């Protein structure tokens, strides 16, 4: 059908001539849109179509690939921590750094902190002795690959790796607290780790499915608060697995220390090539692997 007048003629068949001015065919009808574009714009003589077929996130993906190669060249495994604000990401990171220092498994750790404003989180990390760079995104709601690349270049981890073998280094990237936007932006990480605290409600995986679909691991934090909140762990895991059948789950209290062993076991040795499983995910609780099917089917 002619897209201009709906007359039923095929574009470029019954209609003659150039677009813009309008052209009479043998019946005296006027038709526009017979130019290369197959359409017409009032007041314009000619239009053409440019086929882009371009991924809008291509530039970010290119920079993320460059970060990934850069991390690999420095023996660094990067993990992108995502969650809503207040889930305890920074507390978890401080506890993780201290636990790594106390363990026999020597790995160097650095942190890139993302927040809209303030350097409060980077200062908390630096207080543990680990190097940290704060990125303030201003009004931005997520970190992107360019920001992370520039921050990494400023880290001690980066310069140190140029001088000695740094195999076994972990770079934690704490994203802006937001369960929506950071899901889309690849930073060059080996895995996304989504942190959900028991004060937030077990239905978050269903409400923000894109984030849980993008994550390799879900950490359920603040389990020390379980006696004071109504949070159905089994249902939460069931929802997360519904969104992402390959997701792994660890129950943690970063303040009390529960589950930190499970978390370090998952983390180490650093797997720069990625943490994504190919088989259905598992849940870990109190040092033991719990079959997800058992947790995911609460007894009535």
């Amino acid at each position, binding site marked *: 059908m002619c897209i201009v007048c709906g007359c039923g003629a095929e574009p470029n068949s019954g209609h003659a001539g150039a677009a813009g001015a309008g052209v009479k065919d043998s019946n005296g009808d006027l038709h526009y849109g017979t130019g290369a*574009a197959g*359409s017409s*714009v009032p*007041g*314009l*003589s*000619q*239009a*053409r*179509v*440019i*086929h*882009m*077929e*371009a*991924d*809008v*996130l291509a*530039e*970010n993906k290119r920079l993320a690939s460059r970060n990934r190669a850069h991390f690999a060249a420095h023996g660094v495994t990067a993990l992108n921590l995502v969650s809503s604000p207040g889930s305890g990401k920074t507390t978890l990171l401080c506890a993780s750094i201290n636990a790594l220092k106390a363990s026999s498994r020597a790995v160097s750790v650095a942190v890139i902190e993302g927040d809209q404003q303030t350097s409060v989180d980077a200062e908390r990390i630096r207080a543990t002795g680990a190097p940290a760079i704060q990125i303030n995104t201003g009004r*931005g*709601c*997520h970190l*992107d690959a360019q920001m992370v690349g520039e921050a990494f270049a400023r880290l001690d981890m980066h310069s140190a790796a140029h001088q000695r073998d740094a195999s076994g280094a972990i770079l934690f990237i704490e994203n802006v607290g*937001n369960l*929506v*936007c950071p*899901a*889309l*932006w690849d930073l060059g990480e080996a895995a996304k780790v989504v942190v959900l605290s028991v004060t937030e409600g077990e239905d978050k995986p*269903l409400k923000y*499915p*894109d984030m*849980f*679909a993008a994550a390799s691991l879900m950490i359920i934090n603040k389990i020390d608060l379980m006696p004071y909140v109504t949070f159905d762990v089994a249902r939460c895991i069931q929802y997360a*697995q*519904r*969104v*992402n*059948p*390959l997701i792994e789950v660890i129950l943690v209290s970063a303040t009390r220390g529960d589950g930190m062993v499970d978390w370090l076991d998952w983390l180490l040795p650093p797997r720069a090539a990625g943490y994504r499983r190919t088989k*259905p995910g598992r849940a870990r609780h109190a040092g033991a692997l719990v079959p997800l099917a058992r947790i995911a089917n609460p007894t009535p």
Partner: protein
Amino acid sequence: MHELALATGIVRMVEAAASREHFLRVAQLRLEVGALAGVEPEALRFALTAMVGGTCLAGGEITIDETPGLARCLSCDASVEITSYIDACSRCGSYALQATGGTGLRIVDLLVVNE
């Protein structure tokens, strides 16, 4: 909110195309948003409309085609259409789905003019 960042990227890509392909104005911008792309089409349209002033996209029409999400069922191996990550397999009811398509945001084409 990230639609604003995506819109910035789109305007930048179109402006780059304008200097590469030598056109002055875009009469129509056609985008394709997958159901699993994590992009809200109306929020993207709003963000674009707010920032095209003074660019070659000013006054142009924005068309957003929405494509379905595609997934492979890990239980029955079927390829099914889904609208979100929380959907079940339409054939066997399993939630063990792996997204295989409809995850992207693309600029499909531009209808451009030189006046």
